[in-house]
């Protein structure tokens, strides 16, 4: 059976249940642990609208996975959100595996809506995460302790592989209970498709090598440990390592320490912070949406999703389909970011998530690509019944005499912005529509574009065509866009992650993938997209694989001349730190790893303003006004932190870029170093400039790094030996030890009238500090 649409997940509980099998062992009852649920659409089923569900069961007695209990489900009104949120809803019921999918989905959907009405954030997310590391020290009475990676899991045994390539088979029973559980969990989470990260990385390396061979090039030599550690901290945790972190790593003699560091950092607080910055640039995250509308609940929602490692497809689906007020429902922030501009929003959506260069088609047929203006409006029609409301005249009217203008803004602002569904599709072709296939002002009907050339898939069709039902249209669009079978969704995000780690996408620009042959290495990009699907859009897992490649761990190349030919990835490109990496790194020098604990927490201030009634009653308005009055003496809601209050220096709050204003204020260090103003997607810049040099030489940052209280200076002063003090500076700023010549040069400087603080200033103003090798 061809699975057009499959969605998998693992269910947490319900061990040891009885299931009825199908397939070869049809009709037999097995006792097993529930592994996963698959929903598979029948492509040409006679009834035209059927889904099969099937479950995998792990049978501990036979050590095999069996398919059990197929059931045909009809797609229709009741299953309109049949994808991951449905499964998540099942999950939330805690292992209710009666396959009452139809009933469950509806009930849970309603429950979720009712919940939302009680202004609680509906939690429909999947927690699906691989164990912290497949590298571990395995203990079994059959073998001595071995540090190795889990390679395979079959027939009551596991195969593990050590760093030197030696593999060993160990029976499950011989393992300690912890190791056994670990192996089972790893196997369960990527059933049938479990490829050890080192093998997955090797597959990528083979394709990189093929591309290099063709161009007559070779992979750069491997990075030294010191280069690797600094790079991986910056790329994964968003900051440089401290001197202590460097020392701990360099002292570690474990052969697999690189893989382990990758795993540790992927599960660190810094990872979430760094990913938030990356999304901030991509999604144009801004605190202030105007007219009293603040996006704090949206930002908090994103941070929670990052913490839970919500997979990319689920994440994007939620952004596109959420409904409700911005004061209570986080993901509506995505559509409300462009409220009043639904066409621009769609253009951004297609460009960001599919790499579709569709912006021209908003106004006319694309002159060079396949996009027509009709295509664009037909896609916009999926949002034709979606209202991005930002005005609440009725509420303002009621508020007269109760709230003054300022209060009305504070209290009604958060309640004014919401995403809602209209009774009908109101998308029409524009008044200046100049083509013969539709008249200006005529209603545009929803229709997906289909991919041409070698991206032949037309994406999943709903049986019987697209339902032009206001309640369903946006959902259908989101299902189509985020579908694994949509050839562009996986490709676009895989290419973005690649760029994030290598400095360039396999295909550039990342916002235009319309011609797949423009990729520098098309086979590599295709494989990366396949890998993205294989790991079910788990960005953390995907990054883990890429970080383990020899290509990523090779020496950096200088900025390539792309006019001379495509870059074939002999290693990552030498990059200047991003604005956020530079800021977070300087704060690491200033306050050390305390930095990772300060978390901005501003959503409650907005949530408190939430008024579920529409329009808000005078009583509710009065209650909010009174509440505000009472709290007047308290500090602004905008500066509330959990995990301690970050130190300040002058106007600067010494918290990570992800934990201050979004974007930072105009003349802030971050903006000087190229943080996007969040007006245009993907516009972070790593260009230099005179103002940056001024900041580094004369600005606040020199004070916070050179000051006696800084973590850096305290660390250096803990030594009395000047050679060790100098060594501390080298490790802290550059992540390496000085050569003997460098040591003696620095000692000479100290003998002149330079202090350790002067040397720190000098390090701060080196290229070696601000560039990432």
């Amino acid at each position, binding site marked *: 059976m061809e699975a057009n649409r499959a969605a998998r997940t693992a269910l947490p509980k319900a061990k040891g249940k009885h299931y009825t099998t199908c397939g070869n062992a049809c009709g037999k009852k097995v006792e097993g642990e529930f592994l996963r649920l698959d929903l598979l659409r029948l492509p040409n089923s006679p009834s035209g609208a059927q889904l099969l569900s099937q479950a995998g069961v792990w049978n501990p007695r036979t050590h095999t996975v069996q398919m059990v209990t197929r059931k045909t489900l009809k797609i229709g009104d009741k299953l309109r959100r049949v994808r991951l949120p449905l499964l998540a809803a099942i999950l939330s019921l805690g292992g209710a595996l009666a396959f009452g999918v139809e009933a469950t989905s509806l009930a849970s959907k309603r429950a979720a809506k009712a919940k939302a009405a009680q202004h609680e954030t509906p939690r429909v997310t999947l927690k699906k995460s691989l164990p912290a590391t497949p590298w571990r020290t395995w203990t079994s009475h059959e073998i001595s302790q071995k540090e190795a990676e889990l390679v395979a899991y079959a027939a009551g045994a596991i195969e593990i592989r050590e760093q030197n390539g030696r593999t060993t088979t160990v029976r499950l029973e011989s393992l300690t209970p912890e190791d056994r559980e670990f192996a089972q969990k790893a196997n369960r989470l990527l059933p049938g498709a479990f490829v050890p990260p080192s093998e997955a990385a090797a597959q990528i390396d083979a394709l990189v090598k093929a591309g290099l061979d063709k161009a007559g090039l070779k992979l750069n030599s491997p990075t030294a440990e010191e280069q690797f550690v600094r790079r991986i901290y910056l790329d994964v945790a968003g900051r440089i390592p401290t001197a202590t972190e460097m020392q701990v790593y360099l002292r570690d003699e474990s052969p697999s320490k690189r893989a382990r560091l990758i795993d540790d950092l992927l599960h660190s607080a810094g990872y979430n912070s760094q990913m938030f910055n990356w999304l901030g640039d991509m999604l144009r995250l801004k605190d202030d949406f105007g007219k009293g509308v603040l996006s704090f609940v949206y930002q908090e929602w994103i941070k929670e999703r990052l913490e839970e490692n919500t997979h990319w497809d689920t994440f994007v689906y939620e952004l596109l389909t959420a409904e409700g007020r911005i004061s209570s429902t986080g993901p509506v922030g995505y559509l409300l970011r462009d409220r*009043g*501009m639904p*066409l621009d929003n769609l253009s951004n959506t297609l460009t960001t998530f599919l790499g579709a260069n569709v*912006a021209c088609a908003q*106004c*006319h*047929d694309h*002159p*060079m690509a*396949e996009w027509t203006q009709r295509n664009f409006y037909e896609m916009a029609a999926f949002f034709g019944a979606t209202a991005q409301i*930002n*005005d609440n005249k009725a509420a303002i009217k009621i508020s007269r005499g109760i709230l003054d203008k300022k209060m009305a803004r504070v209290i009604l602002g958060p309640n004014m912005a919401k995403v809602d569904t209209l009774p009908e599709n109101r998308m029409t072709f524009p*008044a*200046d529509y*100049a083509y*013969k296939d539709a008249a200006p002002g005529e209603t545009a009907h929803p229709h997906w574009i289909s991919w*041409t*050339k070698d991206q032949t898939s037309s994406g999943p069709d709903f049986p019987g065509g697209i339902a032009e039902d206001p309640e369903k249209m946006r959902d259908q669009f989101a299902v189509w866009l985020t579908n694994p079978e949509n050839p562009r969704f996986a490709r676009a995000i895989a290419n973005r992650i690649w760029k994030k780690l290598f400095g360039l996408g396999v295909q*550039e620009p990342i916002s*235009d993938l319309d011609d797949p042959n423009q990729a520098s290495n098309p086979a590599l990009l295709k494989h990366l997209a396949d890998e993205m699907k294989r790991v079910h859009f788990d960005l953390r897992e995907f990054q883990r694989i890429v970080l383990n490649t020899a290509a990523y761990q090779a020496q*950096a190349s*200088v*900025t390539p*001349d*792309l*006019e*001379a030919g495509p870059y074939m990835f002999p290693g990552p490109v*030498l990059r*200047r730190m991003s604005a956020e990496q530079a800021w977070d790194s300087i704060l690491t020098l200033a306050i050390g790893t305390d930095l990772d604990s300060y978390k901005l927490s501003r959503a409650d201030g907005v949530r408190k303003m939430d008024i579920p009634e529409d329009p808000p009653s005078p009583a509710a308005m009065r209650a909010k006004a009174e509440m505000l009055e009472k709290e007047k003496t308290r500090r602004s809601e905008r500066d509330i932190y959990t995990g301690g209050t970050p130190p300040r220096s002058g106007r600067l709050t010494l918290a990570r870029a992800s934990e201050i204003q979004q974007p930072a204020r105009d*003349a802030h260090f971050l*903006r*000087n170093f*190229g943080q996007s*103003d969040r*007006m*245009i997607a993907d*516009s972070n810049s*790593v*260009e*230099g*400039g*005179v*103002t*940056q*040099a*001024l900041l580094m*030489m*004369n600005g606040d940052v020199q004070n916070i790094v050179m000051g006696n209280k800084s973590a850096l200076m305290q660390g250096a002063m803990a030594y009395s030996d000047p050679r060790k003090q100098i060594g501390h500076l080298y490790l802290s700023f*550059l992540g390496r030890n000085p050569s003997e010549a*460098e040591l003696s*040069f620095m000692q000479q400087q100290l003998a002149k009238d*330079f202090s350790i603080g*002067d*040397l720190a200033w000098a*390090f701060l*103003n*080196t*290229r*070696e500090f601000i*560039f990432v090798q």
Partner: protein
Amino acid sequence: MKEFTSRLDCLERRAFMERCARLALGVTVLPAFGAAKEQGAEPQTSAPQVKPSGFGSAKHIIFLQLRGGMSHIDTFDPKEGKSKGPKGALSTKAGFQISAFLPNTAKVAQEICVIRSMTAKVGVHEAASYLMRTGYDPRGTIKHPMLGAWAQHYLGTSHASIPSSVCINGNADSGNGFFPATYTPLAILDPSEGLQHAQNREGIGRVESRLDISREVDRAFLEKYPDSNVGAYNAFYDATVRLMKSSDLKAFDLSSEPQAVKASYGESDFGKGCLLARRLLQAGVRFIEVKSGGWDMHNNLEEGMEEGPGAEFDKAYAALILDLKSKGLLESTLVVVATEFGRKPEFSGSGRGHYPKVFSTVLAGAGIRRGYVHEGSDALGAEPVGQGVTVGNFHATIGWAAGLPLDQPAVAPNGRPFSVGNRAQPVAAVFA
């Protein structure tokens, strides 16, 4: 048709589509010079081949960039009837009308030249503002320079120690293009703070001797990575030290301006930016871009024009023109009002959508005809009337005024020739 066209090569497909569009729809997909350029032929011109006057009359350029797309109908090209916005028009001494949203600007109408027949094809902010800043469409593989960098290429630096180009209220956004990184405009993110951190409390001598240590630390790194971006950073540090030593740093400080002057420009960042621009050009900076945000008025046009960027612009622009005039600087300074596109003739009740087909820009000062409207738009403000002025023509016009050789291309590092205005002709009629 999709499949058929995909089999054609780029040029054929483009020509085919254009022909289809012309025949079947009566529209031109590409601006006049676009198709010709593709075949390497001489571009069609929207101006006579005679050399206009005014070459080199602009010693300084102030480029006011209104980000988001200024509504031509609610500013410099007011309409009655179907397209009319929330406010009517004011008559001016110059004999043309200006929207009642701009009462101060209307009073200086006799000093300015409005181009009402600007025409472009891209209605997307990013691509359109790139075109308006550089005269070229964005490409994945090359960055095109802004006019300040072009001028520095042909005319050299305008000052020994402070940059020849400055960008106020925003980052420099690759303003140097493919020219050396030192051509990058100096970014002043907040005009009231001026140039921050221009001094080190321990003195420039100390700074320079510490930088010697930095250089020593970097020695191996610089040898290992002969990288263009690293090289750019080296150049920035050198330029920064020169700047710190400059005696003209006070030009960046607004505090010495009389209160009455400050008040005339207004308290907005844009107003302060315009005042700072005037100070900088007096000190010898050649090209100053001042950005104003918030012109993307989809649903808040009246508020935005009356209280927001519209009102801020009106006050500051009129003050700038009068101030330059009274100081005798307008004769040698070209003041440009630019925006990425116009806004739709249909007024939704709260705002207007993007509209590149026709929009307005304004020139004033150095060699430009005073109190003049160049061409126009139809009764709805929907179509250009006359030859139309492309962004390329517009850039060529500014380049001509600045004395840049439009017919001498610069060769980019990739070996390809580029020129100011992308080989379009300047608009002769706007010169006095």
